[in-house]
Structure formats: C-alpha cells, structure tokens
C-alpha cells in the first residue's frame, strides 16, 4: 500500500525584508514579499527522500494561508517534487494563533489521509516551533520532532534529535508527526522540468466549512492569546567604531574594562 506523506508548509513574509505589524497587530503581509518558509524546504526535502526510498509513496503539501500562499508557497514545494497540494484559504482565518492554525491543519491532514506528517522545525515569522507537537496532540499520534536525521522503514519512523543536553535516537510506529531541522540536509533546487510540471499538479482549495470548522474557533477572534502592543525596538545608540592600527585589541580591552567586564 502506498505511503501517504503530508507535508505542512507555511507562507511567510521574507525575513530579509523590513517586517512590520499591521494596525490590528497581526503580521503585515503586504509590506514585504511572501515566500515558502525556508525551514519548510527541509521538510519537503526529507519527504522527497523518504518517498524515493519507498516503493510507493505520495506526497501532499498542505498550507493554511492567504490567496498568494498557493502561487508563491505551495508551487515551490510542488516544483521541488511533491505530488499535489491542499490550500485552506478563508477570510475568517486572518489573525489565527497557533491553536487555531493547528486545528485547521489537523483537520486538513485528516481530510487528505496520512501515514506520515512532516513539518519544518519552526516558521521563520512566528518562530514558536510548537506546531508539530500540537498537531501530534490533536491527531493523537506519536510526536517525533526536531530531527536532524530521519528514516522510514517497516511502518516505523526513526530519527536523531539533538537536544540541549543530549543526542537522542527516537523510534515510533506510523502514523506519526515528525519535524526536521535545518541540519537534516540541504533542500534541492527545483529543476526547470520540476517548475513546468508543478504548473499542472492539482491543488485543492478548501474553506473552513469544507473541513467542518466553525469560523469563530479561528482568526483573531478565536485566538487564545492577545497582543496588546507592538513597538519597534529603539535603534541602538550608535557605538564607537575604531579601525585597528595595531592597538585594536588593547582599545577593545579598555572598553571592556570601562564596562566592568574585566
């Protein structure tokens, strides 16, 4: 039987752009170009490698996000080699927090049908890194997260997790949710052929009602957290910059001494 892999990806504002908040204190998505979160490329890559190592696998990429998330997010994953896409798009989703997003993703993943869910380690905008754990909790399947190596064989997923104080080897039975880090291996570039093929791959558009989700459970209104204020960090006062003319190390030492670090 075919191995059903679902990769969850996020469309985010480019981190190298000048990211801001909108008036309602949600992420301003208009000011900066959006793209597929770079950390999710690693998830697509590992899904492709797992698929290549298995006799028969199908990869579906799922995203929850605005209109543009299809063209500028999902298509990238499809051009890398994923088979089909699912895009949950609904005005009611604007301003969702991680609880709302994980609810929608869980329903979407169940709608597709899965043996293995693959996520990136965190989004590059919200950067919480907890969505994969929440997805596992909601789906009631094992959480095998933050892997720098991952393999699937005989209905089992195994991997290596580099924690704060130790490196762990993990194993769980499928179905399971995994997340992979940026140490898991460089993501491939889409080939020209891949980009052309992606244009013809099917992307299913879903609304909340298609997934049986009440609109008031998501969006800014359904969020379980509230942002009261967002202020640009005051610019750091310009520091002293000296050119090394042979005494740079000593000058630096004098500065550190003045600040009582030595």
């Amino acid at each position, binding site marked *: 039987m075919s191995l059903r892999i679902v990769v969850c990806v996020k469309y985010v504002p480019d*981190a190298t752009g000048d990211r*801001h*908040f909108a008036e309602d204190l949600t992420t301003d998505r208009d000011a900066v170009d959006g793209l597929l979160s770079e*950390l999710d490329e690693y998830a697509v890559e590992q899904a492709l490698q797992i698929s290549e190592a298995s006799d028969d696998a199908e990869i579906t990429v799922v995203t929850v996000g605005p209109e543009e998330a299809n063209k500028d997010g999902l298509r990238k994953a499809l051009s890398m080699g994923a088979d089909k896409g699912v895009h949950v798009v609904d005005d009611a989703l604007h301003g969702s927090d*991680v*609880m709302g997003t994980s609810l929608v993703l869980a329903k979407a993943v169940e709608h597709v049908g899965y043996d293995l869910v693959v996520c990136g380690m965190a989004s*590059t*905008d919200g*950067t*919480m*890194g*907890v969505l994969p*754990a*929440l997805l596992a*909790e909601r789906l009631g*399947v*094992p*959480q*095998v*997260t933050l892997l*720098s190596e991952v393999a699937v064989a005989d209905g089992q997923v195994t991997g290596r*997790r580099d924690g*704060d*104080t*130790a*490196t*762990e*080897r*993990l*194993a769980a*039975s499928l179905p399971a949710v995994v997340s992979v*880090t*940026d140490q898991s291996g460089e993501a491939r570039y889409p080939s020209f052929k891949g980009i052309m093929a992606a244009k013809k791959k099917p992307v299913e558009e879903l609304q909340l009602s298609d997934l049986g989700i009440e609109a008031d459970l998501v969006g800014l209104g359904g*969020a*379980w*957290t*509230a*942002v*009261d*204020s*967002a202020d*640009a*960090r005051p610019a*750091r006062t310009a*520091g*002293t*910059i*000296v050119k*090394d003319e*042979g005494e*740079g*190390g*000593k000058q*630096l*030492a004098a*500065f*550190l*001494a003045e*600040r009582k670090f*030595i």
Partner: protein
Amino acid sequence: MAEVLVLVDHVDGAVRKPTLELLTLARRIGDPVAVHLGAGADTAAPVLAEHGAVKVLAADAPEFADYLVVPKVDALKAAYDAVSPAAVLVASSAEGKEIAARLALRIGSGIITDAVDLEAGDNGPVATQSVFAAAFTTKSRVSQGTPVITVKPNSAPVESAPAAGTVEQLTVSFGGTATGTKVVSRTPRESTGRPDLTEAAIVVSGGRGVNGADNFHVIEALADSLGAAVGASRAAVDAGWYPHSNQVGQTGKQVSPQLYIANGISGAIQHRAGMQTSKTIVAVNKDAEAPIFDLVDYGVVGDLFQVVPQLTEEVTARKG
C-alpha cells in the same frame, strides 16, 4: 495567594539556571509551586526552596526518560489538576516549549512562547516578547484559560527568597499516547568545561572569518580568558568548523548575555535573531560595511587574527 506552577528543568536533580529565573518571575504573580519530574527531587528541593518554591511536586517514573515529551505533559497536567494554578511557567528549551504547548491545548488555554519578561497585570500576566529578529517588542496576554508561558534564559535575575519547599509526591497516570515515541538511546553532550551557551553572561562567537576549524582556538582562548561560552555562526557550523550545538541564531541557540563578542561574523538577519537582545555587543570584522556594526556598542575594523589574540593577552594581563 494564587499558586503558579514552574516546571523544573534539571539533569538528575541539578537544577538548571533558567528554572531559578522562572521562580523569580513566578513570585511576581503568586506562590511558586515547582514540578520536578524524574530522579533527583531530593537534591533539587533545597535549591528550589531557597529560590521561592513553597512546594515541590515530585514524580519519578521510567517513562520520563524512556519516551519523548508526552509523559511529562501527562505529569504536568496532573500537577495542574492538583493545584489549579494562576499560570504555568516553563523554560523556553525545545522540549520545554513542546511540553507547554501540549499542556495548553489539553487544558484549553492559550500559550505564549519565548517571553523575555513577565509582569502581573489586571487581566493576567503580561509577557514581553522580542519578535521579527528582535526588531519589535510586543506585550501579550493569554486571553483564554490559564496562561501557559515559556520564558527564555537570562530574562530575569536569580533571587534568593527562602520558602518552605515541602516535597509532595505527585501521582501520575500515563495516557495511551505517553509511550508513542521511544527514546532508543541517549548520548549526553560532552562537557567542554565552559558555561552553557544560553546561560552564559558572556558569549564569544566566531563566523566564516575564522576560516577553519583549526583557527577556532583563537576564539576559545578569548572565551576562556573571560570565562565565556563559545558561539558560532551558521556559516562556521555548516563548514564543519564548530558543533551545531554552539550555533547562535534563528535555527541555533538564542542568547541574551550581558556581553556578546562577534568575530568574523557579518550580522545576517538570522544571526541577529539569536543575539540582538544581548545587553552589550562588540564586533571585530575586517569589513567596515558589515551590518553587524549597526548593532555594536564597540567595534573594531580589523583582522580578527591580529585583534583577538591581542585582546586575549590584554584581558589575561588585566585579570592577572
């Protein structure tokens, strides 16, 4: 007074510093009740009491070490049910955040991660966060349920505030998903003898400019003269010059030391995301146009192989 649960981060009862910082923050909201899972509660309890824990709820079972994350969620949920706290605080480690998130979902509460400060407020605790690679500072609240908040290391001082710290056994029954992910083996990270990167008061980092694994001793020597931790940029890690566990940045460790010294690091946004909240920032870079200089309190434009050894020598001489 309301009680506040604090999940203890420890290695066999040796309490890690971020937990003591959580106790400081918890006392701003209520009476801290520490939750100690795994071996070593007797070792940990006096330390927790000294820093304000009125009670220590302890549970030990092989599941905590043998399976990933979920057994600890089950235990924290049991503590939550026993105490009905005003808030739950957890350290912002990778595991801490995952435990906190799953607990929050189970108890129908919102979660805030990576807070850098916490104050009591009229509508519950107010968390300060540093977002978009520290370009913005936000204040947020949990608007549904009992606030579950994870806090970054170095966000609060460690304070002595002696309290009873009475140890009570916590009864935990593990659910069906607790044994889902087996920890087949665990290899503790070898100690370098240097301070932990996220806890250190001073961090000395090297980037692509260090130009080879063999040259990192220049960075290490400066770190050792200052009693500092060693960090690295992703370029240096990807090149195989330094371990990933020392990477500073968006996909490495986020550090907030008193002093950060960047050597041969350009200051890319993803690197900034991991160090921009440092109190004092210093850089050595041969390119006067490097973006890192926009952040510094003091910068030296020059060759790190000249500047850093001279600095090390001077630090050693001044300390001597």
